[in-house]
């Protein structure tokens, strides 16, 4: 039964043309990144972190687009899969069938996670291809928050950790938007609350930097406080984690993910659908 539910949800997800547009948009996102990369390469030295090469473009492009384009894609996915279906009544047809709502939620969540993974993988493939074709080929590359130049094996290890946490940060952001999508009465409400959440994160980061203005930016205490800001995690925390400086960003994401996923689950499986 669960398999049928999963396929049912997966099929529904790709029925929505906007989701397909989101996937196509990744190519455009990569081309935009390439434009920035070529511009910064004009002034940067090969040892600079901002220098883009065949070895590091997949990391720098994700770094640039994680907080903007990828979050926008996640918001779109969540609005269509949760808000639209839950609030506009598409799910009524499913809820009236003799199936488990709990399993339906799990299937929906798995489909969402899988499709976010798909966008990340597509991004990785496109960025690697673009870098190989257009950008200078190098055998070593600088990495975020690490001194010196690194060879391919170090870059691969860094990339795996970077992509893993970037993906998990999108899942966590998705769990927050999912909850807002179920609870909000309108798309404008979901968008407003989502942007409000991001804005609050920026205020929090400013407050933390003001509070710890005498501390170095990479002080463990400062990083610990900043790890509670989802925006900071995406902007810098992912790179801190990949460079091996701290795991606090992973723990904070797990914490946020569990809280919002539980809230979404309770809202979704509420026994009074759209009362």
């Amino acid at each position: 039964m669960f398999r049928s539910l999963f396929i049912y949800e997966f099929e529904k997800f790709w029925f929505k043309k906007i989701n397909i547009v989101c996937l196509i948009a990744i190519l455009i996102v990569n081309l935009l990144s390439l434009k920035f990369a070529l511009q910064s390469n004009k002034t940067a030295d090969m040892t600079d972190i901002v220098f883009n090469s065949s070895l590091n473009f997949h990391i720098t492009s994700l770094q640039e687009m994680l907080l903007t384009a990828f979050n926008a894609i996640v918001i779109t996915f969540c609005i269509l899969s949760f808000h639209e279906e839950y609030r506009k009544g598409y799910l009524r047809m499913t809820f009236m069938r003799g199936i488990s709502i709990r399993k339906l939620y799990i299937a929906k969540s798995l489909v969402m996670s899988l499709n976010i993974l798909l966008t990340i993988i597509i991004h990785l493939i496109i960025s690697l291809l673009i870098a190989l074709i257009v950008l200078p080929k190098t055998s070593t590359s600088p990495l975020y928050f690490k001194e010196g130049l690194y060879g391919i094996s170090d870059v691969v290890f860094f990339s795996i950790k970077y992509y893993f946490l970037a993906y998990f940060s999108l899942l966590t952001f998705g769990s927050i938007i999912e909850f807002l999508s179920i609870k909000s009465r309108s798309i404008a409400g979901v968008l407003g609350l989502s942007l409000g959440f991001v804005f609050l994160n920026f205020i929090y980061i400013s407050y933390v930097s003001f509070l710890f203005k005498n501390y170095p930016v990479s002080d463990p205490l400062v990083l610990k406080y900043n790890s509670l800001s989802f925006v900071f995690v995406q902007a810098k925390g992912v790179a801190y984690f990949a460079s091996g400086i701290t795991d606090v960003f992973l723990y904070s994401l797990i914490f946020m993910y569990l809280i919002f996923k539980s809230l979404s689950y309770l809202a979704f499986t509420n026994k009074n659908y759209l009362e």
Partner: protein
Amino acid sequence: MKSMIEVQNVSKTLNKRKVIQNMTFNVMKGDICGFIGPNGAGKTTLMKMATGLIKPSEGEILINGINIQRDREKALFEVGAIIEVPVFFEYITGRKNLRNLARLNIGMDRKEQFKKVEEVLELVGLKDRGNDLVKNYSLGMKQRLGIAQSLLNNPSIVILDEPSNGLDPIGMKELRELILNLAKEFDITFFISSHLLDELQKICNKYIFIKEGCIKWIGDADSLLKDKEKEKDLEDVFLDFMG
């Protein structure tokens, strides 16, 4: 005769207002039961409770003898329904909409699901238009597609909330014939709410009149005529009850 829908002392409070008050009735196997009441009487709320979308504040609802609150999945296994308006993905075909929903037909392999889709498309007269995008369907066609959705899981009970809303006279006639045919051929029990009393009079063998969340009258069509001998049609009876 077997009771298909048993509503036992059901009440529902929404926003501190009791919209359903201690309602008790049965719909028996083979009935085409009309659920009649003015706007805001609580028809949709009761139907939502009978399809597991919301839970009663008090009382119990048994579908085919199974308590919907205690065993929702089992109780709804043989229920098909349209509550408020049927909902589809407008930019895919009617057939694809049904094929997607048919995935929830537990125990059927994909081949059987496809067969079932064709069967219900045929039943509702949409076989030739199955490959059209739903956005190009007329209101009547959408209503028929909604009924097709509700028939996908071989239901023994079909609950329809205002199924003739927005239909033209031809659409209403087709819908009426479809319901009568399904009840006769497949022994499906229907529980239908509608404002169109003439339509209900032509198909129902039993009526439940409600007002402000309370039952005003229950009985079969014959006893309604006996009770209200002077009245000529359901509309007069309705006005009399609601008066």
